[in-house]
């Protein structure tokens, strides 16, 4: 059994989760401080990929990055390769799809943050980056970890946008989800089932990980007598 789809899926999910962790946390942290009106508009925009069909996201990405579109054509000219149909092209798709998950969970965590802790840090002469990394992030850790794990799980299962922008080439762009579809289409039911089981196992493990991190958060609350 060729394990390339597993390797490729994990690789794509890992990279996109890392990228979106930084972008999502940064966006959420700044969105919390915005006035209501602008926040509402940004919220809608940032959450859109969560409710759009992945094929619509894939279509929009192709319009943006396809080899005949300005960005894609420019990239092809300068680097000699297309932005689509490579294994890493799927990173674009999964990143857009998981951004709302990271953004929304991180924002929830930041909204629950006790602002007086930030103010206390300021009156004690601490710099804002210091306050963010040493006080805000540790405080919001359970929520942000949960968001990260959830994003990873979703990226692992992404199919629609991925298949549109990266296609299915065995040994190159094949992921677990595209492989399952391909195997089922070609009547290789036994192998499809194996991949399905692998996928379910990974997802369950990931979801258990969320439960454990949330459990820790709850324990912290209990200790505070809440």
């Amino acid at each position: 059994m060729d394990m390339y789809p597993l390797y490729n899926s994990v690789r794509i999910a890992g990279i996109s989760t890392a990228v979106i962790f930084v972008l999502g946390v940064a966006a959420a942290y700044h969105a919390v401080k915005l006035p209501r009106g602008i926040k509402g508009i940004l919220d809608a925009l940032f959450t859109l990929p969560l409710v759009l069909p992945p094929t619509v996201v894939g279509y929009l990405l192709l319009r943006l990055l396809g080899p005949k579109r300005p960005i894609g054509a420019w990239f092809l000219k300068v680097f000699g390769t297309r932005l689509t149909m490579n294994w890493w092209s799927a990173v674009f798709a999964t990143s857009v799809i998981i951004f709302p998950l990271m953004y929304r969970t991180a924002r929830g965590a930041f909204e629950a943050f006790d602002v007086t802790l930030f103010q206390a840090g300021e009156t004690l002469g601490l710099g804002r980056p210091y306050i963010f990394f040493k006080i805000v992030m540790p405080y919001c850790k359970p929520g942000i970890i949960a968001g990260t794990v959830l994003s990873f799980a979703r990226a692992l299962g992404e199919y629609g946008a991925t298949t549109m922008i990266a296609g299915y080439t065995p040994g190159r762009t094949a992921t677990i989800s595209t492989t399952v579809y391909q195997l089922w289409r070609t009547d290789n039911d036994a192998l499809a089932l194996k991949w399905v089981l692998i996928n379910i196992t990974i997802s369950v493990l990931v979801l258990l990980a969320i439960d454990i991190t949330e459990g820790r958060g709850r324990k912290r609350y209990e200790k505070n007598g809440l």
Partner: protein
Amino acid sequence: MSLKVRVKKKYSGFGLDVAFETESKKIGILGASGCGKSLTLKSIAGLIRPDEGSISYEDRMLFDSDKGIDVRAGKRQIGYLFQDNALFPNMSVRENIETALHGYARMKRRSIRTGRADAGMNRTADDILREFGLWDVKDQRPHELSGGQKQRTALARIFACDPTLLLLDEPFSAMDSFLKERLRLELTDVLEMYDKTFILVSHDRDEVYQMCDHLILMDNGRVIAQGDTDELFADPGTVAAARLTGCKNISRIEKLTEHRVRALDWKGTEFVTDGKVSDDITHIGIRAHDLMPGDGGVNVIACGRVSVSRLPFEWYITLENGMWWKAARELYDRYDEGMIPQYVSVDAGKILLLRDGPQK
């Protein structure tokens, strides 16, 4: 050694417009919740930015909208004691203090001029832990501490930054009365030991009376009276100020002579006053504990049918004319129920002459 504050800030449905100036080292701001007293404190600390105005302390300009001065909170060297102490929950007591020392070092490095000598500020976290009696709990997290230890940690953290001014934001509001009294004494000790100027914000008149010698009364975003604490309690001047200082009995009046009024809200009971009733006096106030049993003296009031509310150590008695009388519990020993004295009286000097206007 003076604090000058003049700030305005608009919110939807609320406007802050505060001005005061004082040389006092023990300043109190008394007001009901939502009157803007915490916002005033946060403006002084640099945590919120007023729309306009200026704030200076000890000749150092902290904020001036006209000159575009707005010193960042981290450079003001003003200590802020938050209501819930705001200890960093992910850090031990020692780490909380070390973090403050880190902030202090940064403050010193970055501030161009704080106008203060560095004397004696090379203390380590160990020194501070010992000084504040926190050595035994130095490795504990805030949620493991008692209320008193939490507040001491918060104070230790503030003093690690060598504050020039301390802002105390309702420090005792969420405590039971026993702990409150102990912590108040502890805080008073620390403040006296370090000889720091402080502003105490509270809605509790007893607290500000105990701790402050200069008092600012606030209502609905404005200063309604300010001055020496004792004088302000003795002569609040306005109806709103009288209420804030805890005067339970306030009535509209009809002026009869310069020293005689009729209380319109107390069934027309007449009172003789020591103070001269000028034309702008619209109300009188009588503190509930200034009523004395008996029919001697000038201002005798018939109790009539009373209703009694018994507290552990005192009685609240509502007289037939609507006045409140707060009587010590010894009364209980002398009078049985139904045997409340028939008359009470009030000294003519104890009657507060009040205006309805906003400013004293």
